[in-house]
């Protein structure tokens, strides 16, 4: 415990909760600050949601997809022979 007292504002009580004088001093700004806060949070939420939507997967449901090719007896996923690795 330090020798001198930790400086404490009289506007907060012993448990660091704001006192009545502090509430009265803040009172002209409560509504304006709350509305401003809502705007800021709304803006941030909007940016987040738009960004995540924008980088999401594209929707290809309107593009006609060809049917899968009919291949019988192939071993699937053999890549060693069927794919060339470029110029050797």
């Amino acid at each position, binding site marked *: 415990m330090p020798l001198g007292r930790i400086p404490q504002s009289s*506007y907060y009580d012993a448990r660091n909760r704001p006192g009545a004088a502090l509430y009265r001093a803040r009172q002209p700004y409560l509504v304006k600050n709350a509305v401003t806060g809502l705007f800021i949070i709304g803006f941030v939420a909007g940016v987040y949601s738009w960004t995540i939507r924008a980088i999401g997967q594209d929707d290809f449901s309107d593009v006609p997809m060809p049917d899968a090719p009919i291949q019988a007896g192939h071993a699937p996923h053999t890549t060693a022979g069927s794919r060339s690795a470029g110029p050797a």
Partner: protein
Amino acid sequence: MSSRRVCQRCSTLPASIQRAPAPLSARIAAKRCFTLSRTKQPSKSPSDNPPLQNKRRLSSLESQGQRASSEYVAPPASQQPSQSPHEDNSRLLLKPDNLFHSFSNSPSPEIRRRAAFMKQNAYCPHPAHAQTRQPIGPHDLEARKTGTHPPAHVRYECPDCGIPVSCSYEHFADDYENHLDICDQLREINEDDHDLRSGRFFPEFEYPGPQLEEAQVNMTNWDTLLYTREFNAIDNERSLRQATRLLTYPITIGSVIHELSPYNIQSGGRLTPEGLKSMTLRYTLHPPRSGAGMTVAGLRPNPPPTRLFILGARAESSLPREVWIQLVHLFPRAIFHLIFIGPESMANRDAEFPLPPRTASNPFGAVVEDRISGQMKISTFVEYYHTLHAAGAFAPYDPYFDAFVLFHPGLGHPASSHEWAETIPQLLETKVPVICTGYTEYDMQRDIKWVHDTVGGEVDMLLEPGENRFRSLRWDLNDADPSDVSCGNFGLWAFRGKRYETTRKDVE
């Protein structure tokens, strides 16, 4: 809190307080060495008195002045202000939940004296009585009196507010609806008066010192002002009322002349464009930085102090100087000269008599206090302003440095308007802003009407009349008429003599 050094004079104060017939001598002595010691006297004893002018409102100013010594047992000057609550309780005369007492049965002898005064001087307002004086205005209860009963002094005290308001129970019951309008306020006044004499520790009279210049002050209302000025938190409404009653005087002036004033030229802001032009004081009060320092290289030419002429000063001239210093702390780089002028400017300052002799360097025998602070000097002239103006005592007047302040002057009040008749045209001639306050809305409007009637169109309004944001929150009782409640500096307005840049010349 650190221990406070006490000068020799202040350490002898407690004995002198109880002995002295003029109890304010001790307080004045405390005031003189207030930079050395902060004794816990209820140092606002003279300043508690509502600024009542004897002619306009009978007051028990003298009896109120006796209050401090007779009731409050001052703690020894060396006592630490941060007393433990147990020791304080032993000196407490009235606990906070025991503050309501009927005035006649009050534990405080001073209040009992006031009750006796009221019973000898105040008349019952019931309409059945005959009038005793001309009604002052449409709201004056005197105007209702049409009966023929002889006027009777008040004797009956309302059980809810404890203040004698009627001559008998029958008249009280008859007039009850009218009384109900002010009963709550009277009760609040009653409790506040007892609170002041309750002997408790008054933390709200500890004022802060100067603050960092960059820590701006917010002048929206009392709470924001006290917070940004780093006052100790005043949670209790009663304490706030007691504190604002004194602080209203310097802060009202400060709120008008500060650059962050809440009055502006937007609609609803009450300042007129002429008013903005007249706030040239702000150039002096908020000067640009000049590179001044503490060395020889940092010497800079300094402007003369801002002179605030407080005319018709009564109780405000006896306010503790710690209260007036609050004005200085609002303006970090400005210096002030407060000049109290008026026949009653030495009210409640009996210890400072006799006045200095009239010499060539002090032709009017002014009391000059120049040791208050490096930034403030206070002079008190016991003269009418028109005498000093005619003598050229303060000429020349410069709107960049000077302002006149009139605290509830009673310009239009029948008892005092003749005294102002000679002064007001002189004020207009100086073209310097004049800031006025009033006890009530009606008082203020009457003053404005009187000014317009007396000097016609020679007046420019600088600040539209309205409620002062920094009025005293505590209501005061007029001992001569208990139904008359007012508060210090309720209304605020400002004017100036018209400046004609060009005048019309009749072309024939």
